[in-house]
């Protein structure tokens, strides 16, 4: 009894609780601080700089001049050439996202439904292994595979199904799919693995066939993974320029290499900055809308 009496003496006052809450919040801020600082300096500020440059003008030699602020670069975006490039990039990104989803979903589902955790972990590591080497190196490796005498080319010729794929559209898609598939598989895996198996059993018990249970339960519940994976694949695909350059032979202009050109050969920084900013804004709005619609159904 004495113990209990001692315990009751320490009364928890509202002030004490509030103080504890504040301390906790402060500790949270402290741990997040390095990331905040890093993101502000190397991400937010450069973006603001890009945005400012989009209103700058150029000297006669093409050097960006931070005076005579104007909207010329932004008005320049209303241009059939830019529209066709944007359209092509959009199409490429959409097709790649759909391909990643179609191939990534069954794969993620298969990993997530392995019974033993060790098996699941090994399979996940296999998904991640490509990241251990440089993206550029891996893309060049594909170039070798798809080139004349490359393994893929020989295989195609032997079966008579395809010839040399390098510098064709399929080569670009193979490269993009290869590069971005892990970004689709990982969030999908996380979402599917979280689904309680008893929900699928409940659906089956309530007269749903296997495919009904998938459509009515598994698919809607893995939606957060589909949304996250699609965004993670779509955004870099839209700006992709390494893969189209190396595997597509830089024959077609896409948003990525068009912007690079503005900062390089064309020496039109303000226009490049305007393009980058415009894409950023559109993507931001689209992403917020997509996330909201995804969250609503849950």
């Amino acid at each position, binding site marked *: 009894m004495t113990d209990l009496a001692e315990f009751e003496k320490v009364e928890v006052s509202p002030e004490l609780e509030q103080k504890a809450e504040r301390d906790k919040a402060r500790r949270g801020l402290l741990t997040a601080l390095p990331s905040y600082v890093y993101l502000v300096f190397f991400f937010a500020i450069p973006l603001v700089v890009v945005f400012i440059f989009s209103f700058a003008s150029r000297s006669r030699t093409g050097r960006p001049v931070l005076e005579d602020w104007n909207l010329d670069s932004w008005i320049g975006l209303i241009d059939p050439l830019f529209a066709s490039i944007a359209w092509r990039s959009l199409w490429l990104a959409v097709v790649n996202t759909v391909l990643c989803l179609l191939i990534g979903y069954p794969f993620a589902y298969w990993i997530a439904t392995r019974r033993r955790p060790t098996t699941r972990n090994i399979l996940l590591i296999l998904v991640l292994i490509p990241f251990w080497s440089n993206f550029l190196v891996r893309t060049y490796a594909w170039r070798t595979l798809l080139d004349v005498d490359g393994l893929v080319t020989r295989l195609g010729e032997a079966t008579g199904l395809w010839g040399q794929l390098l510098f064709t559209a399929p080569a670009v898609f193979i490269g993009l799919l290869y590069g971005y598939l892990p970004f689709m598989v990982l969030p999908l895996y996380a979402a599917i693995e979280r689904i309680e198996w008893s929900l699928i059993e*409940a*659906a089956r018990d*309530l007269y*749903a066939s296997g495919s009904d249970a998938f459509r009515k339960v598994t698919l809607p519940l893995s939606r957060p993974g589909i949304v996250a994976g699609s965004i993670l694949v779509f955004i870099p695909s839209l700006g992709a320029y390494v893969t189209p350059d190396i595997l597509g032979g830089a024959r077609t202009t896409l948003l990525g290499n068009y912007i690079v050109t503005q900062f390089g050969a064309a020496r039109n920084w303000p226009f490049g900055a305007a393009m980058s900013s415009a894409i950023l804004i559109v993507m931001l709005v689209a992403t917020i809308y997509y996330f909201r619609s995804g969250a609503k159904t849950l």
Partner: protein
Amino acid sequence: MSVAAVSLSNVTKRFGEEVTAVDAIDLEIADGEFFSLLGPSGCGKTTTLRMIAGLEFPTEGSIQIFGEEMGIRPPNKRPVNTVFQSYALFPHMTVFRNVAFGLTMTGVEGSERDRRVHEAIDLVQLSGMANRSPKQLSGGQQQRVALARALVNRPKVLLLDEPLGALDLKLRQAMQLELKDIQQEVGITFVYVTHDQQEALTMSDRIGVMSHGRLLQVGSAEEIYESPVSRFVADFIGETNFIEGEILTGGEVRLANGAVVRARTRSGPGSHVTLTLRPEKLNINAPGTTFPDDRCVLQGTVQRRIYYGDALYYEVDIGTVIVDVMVENRPGIIRYAAGDQVVLDFHPEAAEALTE
């Protein structure tokens, strides 16, 4: 005799080489019966239920539902529905859509479906909650949705896997009575899995006690409580005392402390037995009390008295073991203290001599 609602014959389930979850079970559950499978966790009761549901398939043996062989028929083709332990409500659907799920899948549409869904929601007293999401409901309410979702399909057999396990005691007791009422109202066979012996005793028409994959005893609550077939059953259901002894030629039992008593038994003379004797079947008396001839008597010393509120428990040392005695806390009862010499008496019908 009419055909059994559920009939298991020689049903065995092995997981891999090593684990036998269910070991050659034979069981018939009658139409309209409230049947409980009772046992500690890991005894195979849930696996048995899942095999009836079609969520697992037996390694050996046959399962029939109303005479129809189930074989490896998938769950959606069986005339049964399940109330899952964790309720397994679809989090992305409202209460209405959860309850309507089974009907939608079987093609019941429109006003017929709506009527039946609302009927089921009313039955479990959740009227007005149809448009809520499961997340907005309390545990007890979620449990009712799970029940409505299963009952709305009018299954021939309803399977319940520890449906009250996650609820607190008061709510659990209220739901026990409600479940029993609902079962009588809809008149379908309930197969109920639980590890809570009190729950099984109060709700069931019959109980099957399981341990290590085997079905040890099947009977009414009273049969199981009053005449357990084995030490495990006696121990698992309620509280009991075990006293070692040996059967004499006259049918009496000589206990290890030398006392000779009478008890019910199915074993012959010479067998080594364990007497099971429930605390409430024993009376505690002062030394020198005289008893009628049909009472059995044990001498002992009080070790401890424990106050339970509604009852007093005495721990009495009878020489070889400590025996628990329960005395109802009525006005005027004599209270014995530690160290007191006492005499315990019981009716021979109250003791069961077991060999297992």
